[in-house]
């Protein structure tokens, strides 16, 4: 099991046995692609070639694939943190979206401050998203409401509010898009691999992975968070303030989602476009589940998800299938993973009842 961990970093990477479930899911999903291609395409071999090799064939596709993984890494980290503490954050959609909007608006407002303004705007966005998730944690601490439900509901409402703000008060009338104004040039991250939109946000994502890993396995707070998640009765007995580890991990989870949204603005989109982040929140959840909530495994899991999307996009352009093939494959993954999670939950329940 993934939880059999200790504070040493020696086994930051899972053993083969631990990851066999995830590998199996990946294989089943990919065979899904093959089957679908034969069913849906008149030229299955061409479709498959573009699906599997398309994302790797040139700098443009490859860069965009890596770029697509960045918000998924942030989201996957956020979910992993929450899950490690025994909390569920289903509000990623609203958190990433509102974080991105807050970052955009403050970036516009703080433009004169230069780099300081950029950093400030980024953190304000993260705090907004963290606050939303933290609220669900607070409600659970206070009244024992299910954070799974409240984070989902709050997020759904927030998405609508952000939609309104983008289409209403903050819309840029000068473009044909439903979007805010673009952030200043000086705030945009340098492009790494032109002509793709891959930016240096990638490095920030990798740094985030390292920081979360260190936090979880090297610090006292991370230790207490994991102990609370593994067995909260033991944690309480041992003198850990378990109430704190309902709110804090939820806040951090939203915070990471907010950072993901902010970096998407700074690196890729430059303005909050209506529903630009739709799906990123859910995919972040799937990434964390494939990664078994291990920060180091979030990177390959996010790449896998991004690869499927890039492959579908490439197959769609060069062959006769539609982009929905990506959605189908992702839902297969989602389905398999949730059933695995449910299975382990069920096992646990049966063992302790």
């Amino acid at each position, binding site marked *: *099991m993934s*939880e*059999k*961990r*200790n*504070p*040493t970093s020696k086994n930051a990477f899972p053993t083969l046995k631990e990851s066999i479930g995830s590998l199996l899911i990946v294989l089943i999903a990919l065979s899904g692609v093959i089957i679908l291609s034969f069913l849906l395409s008149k030229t299955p071999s061409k479709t498959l070639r573009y699906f599997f090799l398309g994302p790797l064939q040139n700098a443009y596709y490859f860069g965009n694939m890596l770029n697509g993984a960045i918000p998924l890494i942030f989201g996957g980290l956020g979910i992993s943190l929450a899950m490690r503490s025994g909390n569920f954050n289903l509000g990623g959609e609203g958190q990433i979206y509102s974080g991105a909007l807050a970052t955009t608006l403050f970036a516009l407002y703080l433009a004169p401050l230069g780099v300081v303004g950029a950093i400030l705007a980024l953190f304000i966005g993260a705090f907004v998203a963290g606050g939303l998730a933290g609220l669900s944690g607070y409600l659970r601490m206070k009244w024992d409401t299910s954070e799974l439900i409240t984070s989902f509901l709050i997020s759904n409402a927030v998405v609508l509010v952000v939609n309104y703000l983008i289409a209403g008060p903050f819309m840029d009338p000068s473009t044909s898009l439903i979007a805010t104004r673009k952030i200043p040039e000086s705030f945009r991250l340098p492009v790494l691999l032109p002509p793709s939109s891959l930016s240096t946000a990638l490095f920030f994502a990798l740094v985030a992975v390292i920081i979360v890993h260190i936090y979880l396995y*090297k*610090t*006292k*707070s991370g*230790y207490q968070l*994991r*102990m609370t998640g*593994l*067995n909260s*009765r*033991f*944690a*309480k*007995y*041992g*003198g*850990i*303030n378990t109430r704190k580890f309902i709110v804090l991990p939820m806040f951090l989870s939203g915070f990471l989602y907010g950072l993901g949204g902010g970096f998407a603005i700074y690196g890729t989109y430059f303005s909050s476009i209506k529903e630009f982040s739709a799906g990123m929140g859910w995919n972040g959840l799937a990434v964390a589940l494939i990664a078994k909530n291990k920060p180091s495994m979030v990177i390959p899991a996010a790449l896998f998800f991004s690869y499927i999307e890039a492959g579908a996009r490439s197959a769609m352009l060069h062959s006769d299938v539609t982009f929905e093939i990506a959605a189908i494959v992702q839902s297969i993954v989602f389905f398999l993973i949730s059933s695995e999670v449910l299975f382990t939950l069920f096992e646990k329940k049966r063992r*302790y009842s």
Partner: protein
Amino acid sequence: MELAVEMRNITKTYPENNLRANDGIDFSLRKGEILCLAGENGAGKTTLMKVLYGLESHEKGTIRIRGNQENISSPLVANRLGIGMVHQHFMLVEDFTVAQNVVMGIEPRKYGIAYDLKKAVSLVNEAIAHHHFSIEADMLVRNLTVGQKQQVEIIKMLYRDVDILILDEPTTVLTELEIEALFSSLKQLAKRGKSLILITHKLKEIIAISDRVVVMRQGKMLGTYETKDVNEQQISALMMGKSISLSIKHAKRTDESQPVIECKKITVLRQGQERPLLKDLNFTAYSGEILGFAGVSGNGLGVLEAVLGGFIPVFDGKILHDGNDITNIGTAQLRRQGLAYVPSDRLQIGSSLKASVQENIIVGESRSFRKNGFIDQRQVTKHTNDLLEKYSTKGTAQMPIGTMSGGNIQKVILAREIERYQDYIVFSEPTWGLDIASSQFVYEQMASLRDKGAAVILISSNLDEILTISDRIIVLYRGTRVASFVGDEARNLSKEEIGEYMLGIRKQGASHV
């Protein structure tokens, strides 16, 4: 006489700990009688009844119901054979009415598919009236008292045309009046030809209600007796058995002994239950002394443990530690003020099974963490390995503690708690499930703590343990202190004598310290 149940040579071993819970048990129940199944905790009473009710499988033996040999593989089969069981913990849906709970699974139907709620209410009301119970079918279960909830459970079984009814410790949560009402209902049922089995260890109740009594001890059947032929003392002696002696030196309280933990008139209530879990409990734990709390389960030992551990608040009264008020400050705060505590539930509370041994060791510890919030990895490994060696525990720092044996897990917990104790330490059921050698180890540790001047509080339902190592003994019965013994008095106490206090047959006068 016609036999309702006949069990022959039933043997059941729990593979987890290789414990023989039932060892060649012969058991019979006559039609229309009330039979009490008596024994201490862990005697195997509940296991035997679970076998009869299809909740546990057995390796050997046969079961005959009304003369026919049956294979009872699940409670469903048991129900079909007319066997019902009322568990100690009720299984009711709080937000449903009495009627909805009773008919659950066999709801009356209208037009073949629709749930006929009206009919359910009238049918259940009929059943209630027929058996002279005091509830009504349209009452919400949430609003019932514990005694009434129990009636719902019984009606639930009777509604299913059960004529062999098993009740597991039915009086634990009831008040005296509720017990009387229950007993008169049960006698009514017996008169109508139902056969009843009561699992209990309360002697007064055995005498009051049963026709026959079966006594079990440590998985073995000691005998079946006509209740009119035996008295409470005889049953008590059978249940308790002979003492095994482990030698531990005792200490005398000296002038240097200081009060460490003082509990002043603490009372604990539970919502929806009339009888307090603890009532006006007074005691002081002194330094250099092992204070033992004895009692049969359900009489307040577990509650006392939860109070000392900070898991449940007291409703009234005060707890002082070295003169400082520590009433209701919560576990985290208690820990900071020096609580060391070996809990009875070592697998769910005392350890985190999926976490590594070292992660289990360093919880709540300060040395292993640096000022800047990081873990001092070298210190953690060193500390853990030192402790494993000092307490001669087999295992490594990195392995998940859940892969260790029960005895070794307990050693890790002991090591952790003994290392952090300041002036008092609480042990609850410290040797439960351990073999003799491990138990001896635990006792030696406790004695050495006592000799170093610790105030040791032992909470145990194991009488041998209490008598072997306590310097002073307090007996709890139904949440109150019914007796206490100091010095020679405690040392010369016989098992039978203390057993009588535990079972509520005897009570000391209020003047006793």
